[in-house]
């Protein structure tokens, strides 16, 4: 089971993770999750908001395609991806990825690999705004290197 949600609404990661956990089936022996937050401070200075654009329809379809790619390598039983778009204030959650599997290794690996794909391959465009103006964020060489490790 793969569930992908792209939303302009704020979401509560703990609540979403609890609902995902409550709906697990009896094959599930492990659940791993990751939450990415909008930082209020980066090495470039103070961040007041992030703005994330997406391509409605295409973004969801691409994330589902990437999730199926992860599914082919790591035997998860369920995967949840929630990604926020629009203007996101510092401190809010941007992304939640959670995976269930029989044993822990597949859940850890699925979450990590899905996050690495979201950083480089999912159709989102991110702009950071602070007191000194706004700048577009693109994947770093480290992001590309991590993706390369998955052999995609």
């Amino acid at each position, binding site marked *: 089971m793969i569930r992908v949600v792209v939303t302009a609404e704020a979401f509560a990661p703990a609540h979403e993770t609890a609902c995902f956990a409550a709906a697990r089936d009896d094959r599930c022996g492990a659940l791993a999750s990751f939450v990415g937050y909008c930082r209020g401070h980066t090495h470039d200075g103070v961040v007041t908001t992030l703005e994330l654009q997406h*391509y409605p329809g295409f973004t969801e379809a691409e994330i589902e395609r990437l999730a199926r790619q992860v599914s082919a390598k790591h035997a998860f039983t369920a995967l949840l991806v929630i990604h926020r778009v629009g203007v996101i204030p510092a401190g809010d959650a941007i992304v939640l990825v959670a995976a269930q599997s029989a044993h822990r290794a597949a859940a850890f690996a699925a979450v990590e690999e899905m996050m690495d794909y979201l950083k480089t391959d999912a*159709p989102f465009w991110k702009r950071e705004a602070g007191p000194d103006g706004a700048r577009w964020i693109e994947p770093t060489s480290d992001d590309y290197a991590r993706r390369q490790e998955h052999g995609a």
Partner: protein
Amino acid sequence: MTRLLFFGRLRDVTGFAERDLELPRDIATIADLRAFLSASDPDLGEAIAARGVRVAVNQSFCLNDLESVCDAREIAFMPPLSGG
């Protein structure tokens, strides 16, 4: 009618997110479309030629500039992606 969509920094160059237009008959490929857009807006032509900019026709990524736009309902120009 074909809908052109621009994202991220490309939207800053165009000043709009999308535009519907009737493509001239002699525009058959992505390369033709690039030349056409570049002729009307050289800054946009340069921006969409930048490294890492990808094109999708009808919500499917193009592998090269020779792909056809004849049946395109929607053509998206996308700078490098960054989620998460």
